[in-house]
């Protein structure tokens, strides 16, 4: 026992073991990502930049200016100024989100009763000015057209607008543990 300890002390066995591991990883492929060139693809349902849903039938926003998103917002960064339209319907004259204060919890998406706001998968929107990070209604609708328009937007509400009826019941094909073959 004592002899083994002396040998270990003289020959730095534990340090050599560590170095062997380092050498082994040197030959294995790198796990780091060269970020600006090599982008991390956001997973579906990522909570990124906001967008206001544009109704493809009318070309206008779906928002009914009920103010639930502003009520639930934990950082209170949504401002809605509602007014009466020509058809005597309430609508949001101004719909503004302060991105510098938003915490991207997606509670606004959950609170919205009509599915009028989403968080897109776009996450690179840093800027030097505050104005660029202050989203107006026009900007938010442009975001929808840019990142979510078409089938992608429809898919979003099917999958990521919670809670759904499926959250309250057991359904067929619920994800379960399955043993891998072989």
């Amino acid at each position, binding site marked *: 026992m004592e002899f083994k300890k002396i040998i270990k002390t003289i020959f730095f066995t534990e*340090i050599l073991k560590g170095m062997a591991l380092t050498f082994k990883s040197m030959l294995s492929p790198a*796990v780091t990502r060269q970020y600006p060139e090599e982008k991390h693809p956001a997973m579906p349902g990522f*909570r990124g930049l906001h967008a206001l849903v544009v109704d493809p039938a009318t070309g206008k926003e779906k928002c009914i200016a009920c103010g639930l998103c502003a009520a639930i917002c934990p950082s209170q960064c949504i401002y809605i100024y509602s007014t009466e339209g020509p058809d005597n319907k309430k609508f949001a004259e101004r719909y503004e989100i302060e991105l510098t204060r938003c915490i991207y919890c997606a509670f606004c998406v959950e609170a919205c*009763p009509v599915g009028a706001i989403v968080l897109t998968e776009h996450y690179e929107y840093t800027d030097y000015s505050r104005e660029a990070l202050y989203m107006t209604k026009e900007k938010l609708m442009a975001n929808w057209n840019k990142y979510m328009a078409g089938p992608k937007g429809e898919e979003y509400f099917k999958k*990521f607008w*919670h809670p759904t009826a499926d959250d309250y019941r057991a359904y067929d094909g619920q994800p379960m543990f399955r043993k891998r073959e072989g």
Partner: protein
Amino acid sequence: MGEIEQEKLTEAAALKTRELTVSMGPQHPATHGVLRLVLDLDGETVVKCTPHVGYLHRGIEKLAENRTYLSALPLTDRLDYISSMSNNIGYVVAVERLLGIEAPERAKFIRTIVGEMTRISSHIIWVATHALDIGAMTVFLYSFREREWILDLLEMLCGARLTVSYPRIGGVRNDVSQEFIDSLYKFVEGFDKRVDEYETLIDQNRIWLKRTKGIGVISAEEAVNWGLSGPMVRGSGIPYDVRKYAPYDAYDKVEFEVPVGKDPGDVYDRYRCRMIELRQSAWIIKQCIEKLPAGPVMAPDAPKFTLPPKDRVLKDMESLIHHFILITKGPTTAPKGEIYSSVEVPKGELGFYIVSDGTGRPYRMRLRAPSFIHASVLPRLCEGGLIADVIANIGTIDIVLGECDR
């Protein structure tokens, strides 16, 4: 002896020595955020150590009073921001106990899984930064590889990597996907080998042993008297774990061991505890995935406390009313009373004391933050030791100032 040398000796004897006061932090890289220590030094020995906290105070307890139970949830993300899921779980478990509702079985299992995932990621960060502080940089590079995997899985699960806000009062936000389960199972199957790698690098390393053995010793009795919890008290040999003593979620349905350190309860023992906990967490996740039952992920029998399903909001009058009331006023039928409920977060025992006055908002929310209590034991660990060991002691208590200052 020459005349000049004699003169020098008398001069040295006449020189006065005095204690030096050094302010360490709040911008010191090894203080894990914004901890400030005022150290009185006699040469290299620490005579007195005074922690100054509060640089990261955001008034989370007060902020929660003006929010509904649901919308106070993201605040708890910002407590211990490297294991936000554990804090979320602590909060929703407390609120559920207050409201008297229970999450469905599947939601409980999912919560256990994600809670243990953040425990792994928190302990991984701990071993990485602790080793980096002490001088072993290599572990950092290895452990962040696994952390990235966990963060990717969390992103797949709920769309956010760090501030997740995933659990909900009465369940979880959404069901897990098949892809998530498969990928996580693959992760936990190979995780023991990864822990072996970290251990190869530092476990027997003579510098690591010199820097950790016999440093920051605290006996079992003292650890209890100081109110320590988590790996801090387990490292001293007390097998105290909230997951065992007051099981919440699905911890009473899985098997796991509570690792305890041997005598004397030093930095090395706590390191061993956390390394074993990493393996135990992976084991818990594995069991939970295998036992994951089918069923709802939101409590179906508590319509006054959980948001109604979206397809019913615009079709069913009652659901629409519940939806509007819950969002704007919170659960207004919440019972009056108070509750203390605690969960085991990676740092220790995180307690939520919530007073409800029957409105939809907490009348008072008080947190028992393990990091704050562990910061108070710092002077006891540091005094009498060397200044270099202060770094090892800050590392070993695994302090996160977001939680400490709240």
